[in-house]
């Protein structure tokens, strides 16, 4: 039917329909006389319209659609064909994934598919986790490990393809009493065999529990779900001590089921293979005794039982297997079997193996792989409990040696090291030593130690402690001095109280071997004299960071080069931190230091390592540091910066930075980045507040103050910003960075002439700083002048990294939006970091009317240009 015809049909149709029913037939016949086709067409439509059409399509299908959507959306996978897999049924679901039974139509066999759950579909972290799980399991080849066939990505679904194991979970089998004590040795051997294989590949399962162990009808064990598995084998590349990392806690899932967790896992300590042996012990106990070992009324009691309960009753306490299980269940991992292999040897020595095999009552068609979804509340419980358990009980009555402030705390400042030029290593120690003492003393209850940054300006000055006590308004100061006596480097420590009188002093010979013990003595003495606080040995050791003096030395060097970083020194810092980690793999500060270095690598040593690689390493290190010491503000900050600058995960960044600030409100770097995040997200007042906090903590640190001036100039009247810059420029006349910011502000506040002159001067010194000049020239109509800068900078960029956004700014100024966006795209791909200021950087203004700008804003997930500025 052609459209002219349908029009005719339609016209007649409506004409007829408007008539009373009795007149229709006659009218239709009249209109269609000689056109039988038209008559038939309209007539059939009219009768269709008349007969029962009243309700047809009256209820929009959209309500049906929404009902479908709102029901278990995973239902929609059933019946779906994904590549060669026809999804047949859902087998189970949990926090991270959903497992389906499917048919591999090419091979005609059943398989199990593990998908990410709906809400994690767009979560890249979860995706990587799934890939890691597949990779971990794919490394393994063992009859007792469920084999992984592959990982597929089809139509936006990513899933692991694995063997479909017909049988039942150990949990169901225990419940159904289809297995019992007589099977325990056989099962233990199989599971231990699976663990031996995993461990041999450097994989800790971390979630051994009856639900993750399938038993087939023939009694064969298949260990499943390496979703929480963690690879611990050092990579064989140059950085032998780097561990790949896959912590789950940061995501809000509790790794593993609490009931089978090892004590060290509950305490969130670094795990090794022996953690799996503990979990296996708990599983074997359950098979043996028919009840869950750590079953308690509440999670809290369960945790407490795992951590402390040692009295496990056995029906046959003297049996060999009971003793083996008991050994697996030792709280102290050093007292467990050293490895799965050792456990296997013990198991093999048992001769009384029942060979009657397995007679499963039930053959469950579907195994029920249900994953634990740990609610946040649960995690909180655990965290709180652990915190509570760790809380020192020896809170002391406070000494009267010094007067506390209103809150009852004593304040102390540790001064920069005064040093004789001839003293060995004084460069490394000058700042590192007081910083470490501050860190170690900060954990003393009732003692408030000023951050190093607040005393940094005393560096290199001859100072009178008595005067500083007053200047800094503290109760006491600890002064340190390095000097040479009889050819030996000595450290003099001196604790002075507010009235100027000396409380304690000491002098010791100092070298790398003794440095840790000297620090120990200083910490003990300060604590003793100020608060009479006796730190427990454990806490004391923990606050030390490392007990390996060589590792400490490497760490000090790393930090020294980090602090004085430039293109050459930053990679050196990484080398030193790496050495420190190699010497002490549990050295949290070293991981944090290396994370901090990697974070800045792309900014400072462009091109040394691709941004992506550096950030991946930074992330791994920061997570490792947090795993080792969850209370380290530095590591949380590093992670926050990665989320902020590289991953553009604003919420995640905020959480980490807030966490860092909560852990150490004196850590200026956290405030610094948080102020940036708040600014980008359109919270000017809070941003200013944070930048101010950072400035107050580090009043002598140029970048910190610059950050404050910048934000101030955007949030408050421009005069305030100008005054801030003016003062800062005077204090740091050598800094181009400050000049550039100052000039940009002048440019925006109708002092274009001044600004231009400053741009010219800066550019003449360093050609990487030409973007603003070219921009300003172009906007003033001097296109030739702008092009000249552009050409020179492009030429320069052949030898030296210049962030793409610099060119985007120039093109924006020239009105060449196509090229501007091309460079922004480049920046987007490189994720250099500056792109996060897209919506707040005034120089991008000319681009803001272009649809491509919105596209980029949206891809970055940024709020639209904020009218707040």
């Amino acid at each position, binding site marked *: 039917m052609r459209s002219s015809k349908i029009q005719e049909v*339609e016209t007649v149709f409506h004409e007829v329909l408007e008539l009373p029913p009795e007149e229709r037939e006659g009218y239709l016949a009249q209109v269609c006389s000689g056109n039988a086709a038209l008559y038939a067409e309209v007539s059939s439509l009219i009768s269709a319209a008349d007969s029962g059409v009243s309700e047809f399509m009256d209820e929009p299908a959209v309500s049906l659609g*929404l009902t479908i959507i709102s029901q278990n959306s995973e239902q929609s996978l059933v019946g779906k064909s994904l590549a060669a897999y026809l999804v047949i049924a859902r087998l189970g679901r949990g926090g991270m994934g959903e497992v389906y039974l499917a048919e591999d139509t090419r091979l005609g066999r059943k398989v199990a598919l593990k998908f990410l759950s709906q809400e994690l579909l767009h979560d890249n972290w979860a995706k990587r986790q799934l890939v890691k799980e597949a990779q971990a399991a794919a490394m393994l080849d063992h009859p007792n490990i469920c084999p992984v066939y592959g990982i597929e990505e089809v139509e936006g679904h990513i899933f692991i393809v694995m063997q479909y194991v017909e049988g039942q979970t150990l949990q169901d089998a225990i419940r159904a009493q289809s297995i019992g004590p007589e099977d325990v040795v056989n099962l233990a051997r199989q599971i231990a065999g699976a663990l031996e294989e995993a461990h041999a590949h450097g994989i800790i399962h971390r979630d051994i529990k009856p639900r993750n162990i399938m038993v087939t009808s023939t009694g064969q064990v298949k260990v499943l779900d390496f979703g929480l598995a963690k690879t611990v084998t050092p990579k064989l590349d140059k950085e032998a001590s780097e561990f790949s990392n896959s912590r789950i806690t940061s995501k809000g899932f509790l790794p593993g089921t609490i009931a089978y967790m090892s004590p060290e896992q509950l305490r969130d300590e670094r795990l090794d293979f022996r953690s799996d042996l503990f979990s296996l012990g708990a599983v074997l106990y359950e098979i043996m005794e028919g009840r869950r070992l750590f079953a308690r009324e509440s999670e809290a009691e369960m945790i407490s039982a795992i951590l402390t309960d040692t009295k496990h009753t056995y029906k046959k306490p003297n049996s060999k297997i009971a003793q083996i299980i008991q050994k697996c269940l030792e709280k102290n991992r050093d007292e467990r079997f050293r490895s799965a292999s050792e456990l296997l040897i013990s198991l093999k020595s048992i001769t009384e193996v029942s060979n009657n095999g397995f007679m499963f009552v039930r053959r469950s068609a579907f195994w029920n792989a249900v994953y634990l979804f740990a609610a946040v509340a649960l995690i909180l419980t655990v965290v709180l409990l652990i915190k509570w358990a760790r809380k020192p009980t020896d809170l002391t009555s406070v000494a009267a040696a010094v007067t506390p402030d209103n809150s009852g705390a004593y304040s102390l400042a540790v001064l920069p090291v005064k040093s004789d030029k001839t003293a060995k290593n004084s460069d490394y120690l000058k700042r590192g030593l007081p910083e470490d003492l501050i860190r170690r003393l900060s954990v003393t209850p009732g003692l408030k130690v000023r951050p190093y940054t607040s005393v940094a300006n005393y560096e290199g000055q001859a100072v009178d402690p008595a005067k500083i006590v007053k200047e800094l308004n503290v109760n006491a100061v600890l002064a340190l001095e390095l000097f040479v006596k009889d050819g030996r480097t000595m450290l003099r420590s001196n604790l002075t109280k507010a009235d100027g009188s000396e409380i304690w002093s000491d002098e010791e010979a100092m070298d790398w071997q003794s440095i840790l013990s000297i620090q120990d003595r200083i910490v003990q003495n300060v604590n003793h004299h100020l608060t009479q606080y006796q730190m427990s040995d454990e806490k004391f050791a923990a606050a030390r960071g490392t007990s390996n003096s060589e590792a400490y030395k490497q760490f000090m060097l790393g930090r020294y080069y980090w602090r004085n970083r430039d293109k050459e020194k930053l990679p050196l810092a990484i080398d030193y931190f790496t050495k420190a980690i190699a010497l002490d793999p549990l050295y949290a500060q070293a991981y944090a230091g290396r994370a901090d270095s990697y974070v800045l690598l792309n900014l400072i040593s462009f091109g040394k390592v691709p941004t992506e690689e550096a950030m991946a390493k930074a992330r791994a290190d920061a997570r490792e540091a947090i795993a080792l010491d969850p209370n380290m503000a530095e590591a949380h900050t590093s992670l926050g910066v990665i989320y902020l600058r590289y991953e553009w995960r604003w919420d995640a960044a905020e959480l980490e930075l807030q966490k860092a600030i909560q852990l150490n409100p004196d850590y200026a770097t956290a405030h610094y980045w948080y102020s940036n995040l708040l600014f980008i997200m359109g919270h000017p007042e809070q941003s200013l507040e944070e930048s101010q906090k950072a400035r107050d903590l580090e009043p002598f640190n140029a970048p910190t103050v610059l950050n404050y001036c910048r934000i101030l100039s955007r949030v408050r009247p421009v005069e305030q910003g100008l005054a801030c810059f003016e003062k800062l420029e005077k204090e740091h006349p050598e800094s181009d960075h400050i000049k550039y910011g100052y000039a940009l502000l002048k440019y925006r506040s109708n002092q274009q002439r001044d600004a231009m002159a400053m741009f010219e001067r800066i550019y003449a010194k360093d050609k990487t700083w030409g973007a603003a000049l070219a921009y300003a020239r172009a906007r003033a109509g001097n296109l030739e002048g702008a092009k000249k800068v552009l050409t020179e900078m492009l030429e320069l960029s052949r030898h030296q990294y210049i962030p793409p956004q610099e060119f985007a700014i120039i093109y924006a100024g020239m009105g060449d939006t196509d090229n501007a966006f091309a460079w922004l795209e480049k920046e987007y791909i490189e994720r250099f970091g500056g792109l996060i200021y897209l919506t707040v950087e005034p120089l991008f203004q000319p681009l803001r009317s272009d649809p491509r700008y*919105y596209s980029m804003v949206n891809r970055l997930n940024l709020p639209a240009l904020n009218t707040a500025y």
Partner: protein
Amino acid sequence: MTASPSSEITGLLVDWGNGDQAALDQLLPLVESELRRLAHNYMRHENPDHTLQTTALVNEAYLKLIDQKKTRWQNRAHFFGIAAQIMRRILLNYARDRHRAKRGGKSIQVSLSEASAVTLEKARELIELDEALNRLALVDERKARVVELRYFGGLDVEETAEVLRVSTITVMRDWKFAKAWLARELDNAK
């Protein structure tokens, strides 16, 4: 404190409005997942007896997904059009899955009984209606669009008119005709 995770949609909608067809391909899955999420939350938090106010929901989706300040009025129309298309696709996929699952033979034992919003009968009807609608589109594309917007998108006459930029009278006439046409097609199919 952060922007809506789907603010990308606004940009794509603008791009699409500016004639960038590729933006539509990116837009569809995004709106779909947001709609799914919204509907999901909606059902979870509302009283289960509560009847879904469908246009209200699409409207809410629109308000949530689209930054009003950044878009022109046409975007709302575009968005509704897209939502209708998505609904149609979701429904049809579901109906087909439902059908396929039933036909799948003995190896497939689907436990759909727990949650079958769509009866088998309804599933077949939907599939047939969809096919008929495709045929109608060949005859008169606008009428097919009217049906899509009204039936699958839940839009009322005025909203449909806004999306298609025609008068409400035209929409009403199209709707009446299309309904008769489709009813006849479905009847013939039986």
